[in-house]
């Protein structure tokens, strides 16, 4: 699939409608069935796909609307992770989950969700997976001697699923590792686990590193300076980072980014409801172009649009696409 220069994409999640939140919570209250919830999810995902298509996004996701949050979707599927189902009051809460023994290998069922996305759009697609570092920070480890060993084993059991997703046609897979920013000292082993996770996965791999977006607010603050030099060991093709909310100062750090890396630049602040103008987006893209050539630059929001109202999320995606088009015109001269 041919992409334009400065391809636009999303980080993964799309606006979670209030009605879907309520229905998910109804499911936990046992007032609707799993079968009905699955059908509701299918419908919501189709709507998210359509919104991204109408907005003109080049590489789209399923909006992650099946996921309660970035952890539980995986924790529930990982054999060997024990879940206290009574621990969730609201769908967005994290389960109390723990691991008591060595994780066994088994399919996780992510391929089906990717196939649903693939079947419902002609656009290029992206499938997002929470990385082992972030999972190891939330699933309680009561077996492995260290977080590092737990994360490495998570990577080992998730790797075959990623290979299967690629085999099913995924050309672009994004690994989400926001917790790197909260625990910068973990970066060396975080990257090791990341490399094991994506080993042999035949797709373009991006790693998304932000400063958190839980409840639509940052979990940490700081500078991406901590990523260097550790991140350069990552066997990925693209770094996808947050720049719109935090200002573009950190962009300078990526001026010397080796040519093997592309840069996904966040140009949409997902933590405010103010919709950017295409001009503002274009300005942010131009700033990024000052440090990285256009052929290695991808355009996307800072993070997922989960916490934004639908009309705001849609407006922001439209502005992002509009801004990218403005700059493409300039580049064509």
């Amino acid at each position, binding site marked *: 699939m041919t992409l334009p220069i400065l391809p636009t994409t999303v980080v993964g999640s799309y606006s979670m409608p*209030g009605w879907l939140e*309520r229905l998910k919570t109804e499911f936990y209250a046992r007032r609707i069935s799993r079968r009905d919830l699955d059908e509701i999810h299918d419908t919501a995902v189709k709507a998210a796909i359509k919104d991204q298509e109408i907005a003109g996004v080049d590489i789209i996701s399923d909006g992650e609307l099946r996921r309660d949050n970035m952890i539980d979707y995986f924790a529930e599927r990982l054999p060997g992770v024990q879940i206290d189902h009574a621990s969730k009051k*609201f769908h967005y809460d*994290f389960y109390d989950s723990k691991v008591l023994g060595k994780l066994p290998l088994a399919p996780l069922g992510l391929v089906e969700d990717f196939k649903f996305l693939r079947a419902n759009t002609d656009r290029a697609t992206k499938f997002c997976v929470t990385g082992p570092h972030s999972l190891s920070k*939330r699933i309680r480890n009561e077996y492995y001697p260290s977080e590092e060993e737990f994360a490495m084993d998570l990577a080992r059991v998730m790797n075959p699923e990623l290979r299967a997703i690629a085999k099913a046609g995924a050309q672009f897979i994004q690994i989400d590792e926001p917790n790197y920013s909260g625990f910068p000292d973990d970066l060396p082993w975080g990257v090791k686990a990341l490399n094991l996770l994506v080993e042999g996965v035949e797709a373009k791999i991006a790693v998304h590193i932000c*400063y*958190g977006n*839980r*409840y*639509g*607010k*940052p*979990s*940490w*603050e*700081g500078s991406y300076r901590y990523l260097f030099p550790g991140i350069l060991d990552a066997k990925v093709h693209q770094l996808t980072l947050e720049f719109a909310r935090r200002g573009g100062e950190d962009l300078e750090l990526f001026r010397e980014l080796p040519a093997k890396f592309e840069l996904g630049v966040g140009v949409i602040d997902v*933590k*405010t409801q103010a919709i950017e103008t295409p001009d503002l987006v274009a300005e942010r893209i131009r700033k990024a172009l000052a440090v990285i050539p256009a052929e290695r630059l991808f355009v996307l929001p800072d993070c997922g649009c989960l916490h934004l109202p639908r009309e705001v999320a849609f407006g922001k995606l439209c502005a992002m696409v509009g801004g990218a088009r403005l700059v493409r015109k300039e580049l064509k001269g």
Partner: protein
Amino acid sequence: MILQLNHLQKKIAASTIQEVVDTLYALLEEGQLEQEQFARLRVHLDWIQYRQNFRECVSATKATSEPQKQRSPMEVHIDTRQVTPGALRDEILRTMTSCDAPAPRQEGVLLEDFRSFRESIAWGFNRLYWHRLADWEQFTGRGYEQALPGGKSDANHPGAVADCVGDFWTLIRDLDSRKQLPEEIFVLEIGVGMGTRAGLWLDRFRALDGERGTKYYPRLRFLLGDYSLATLERSRPAVKEHLELCSFVVLDALNPLKNLAFLRHKILHIHLTNVYDNLPDEEFARRDGKLYAVQVRAYVPPADAQRISQESKISTAEIPRTVNRLLEGGPDYLADRQRGLAFWQEVWKAMRLEERLVSLEDLPDVVLPSGLHQEKLEEVLQEAPSDVRFHASSGALESFQNTVPLLHPRGFLQVQDIFVTNFNEYRLGFHGPGKLDGSIVNWVNGVLLREVGERAGYDVHFAPFHYRKGSRTSILYTTQRE
């Protein structure tokens, strides 16, 4: 008939209950009260701790727009503190018979139509008080802090301030050790009063920083925020030793973000004292499983209206218009300033609120407080007593929602105020509104704050204020929700 005793003042309650029951049966026997009326009566006995409040000794609250009127609840509220021996019968009779009248009492003066309390003219008086505090104080001859229980604010308790500073120092030390401490360390105090707490806080922080040799003090950026410029000016002397670190910001406590958007996610500590209890509010009631909005209209009772009319040399009919002029332009805009101040005080003192219940089903456009949806409210109420009347704390919820986005990811909010932290508390005492000098005081619904906080990504906790024995305030503090 349901008789509901909402307080624990045993002796007063016992004698009043007997008198109420005797009176109602007597009225029934005399035919003054119909059986059907008697059957659907709910009599609430409250002991209103605020000497100045919005209730008469006996008042009635009726539900409106009921398709089957005979089934709608009819409530009589009795303030056991105001009951005087022998007067109850006449008061109940008056209330029951005037219940369907257009005005609360013959020749009383209505100041507005029925509306949500948060939109009531009462809040206009509250605003005027804070904007013209100096005038009020001059006229009454006492400072506003003297009106507080104990005559001073708990906010200024040195022990509480020292603990707050200690917690804050620990937080920034931790951030520093992780190399995550911003160069500028922002702290915000909303509702500064005389600036006493801000001064104490800064003194203590400087001392602690000096003792521990951490050199954070010069990096502090202390913002004093208040919606009254006059109050900000009055707070300056209290922080005079720290002026180079202080900024004085006029802001609306309902939406601090409006003026401080540039500090989104940057403030490490935000503190408010006795602000939430003074923000516009409204009440809801659940009766027989149905949710009602409590609507109010302000009025001046007839005897007071007559007196004010004579003292102010205006007719009773002119009172509403004169009140509007007062609220728009202040006491100076009335004939002369002294008379204006006297008129203000007298109307405020006399003002009462008539109430009615309107089913939420009849109010399809009802705006619930920020961050609270009806489904959520109903979910919360599943844990509450079946018949309960409670504050929506709209202003407090709005303020909270518009304050937490200013917090740094590791920052925390502290609110010292009077909180109801469990719906059962509403059945054990009166929680406002009351009048505190020229302002309104209302307890804050901590249960709803907790719910709204969760959705905003914060766990909200309440700790009793243990620094002063007998204090009824608590400290709300937030922690990041995982």
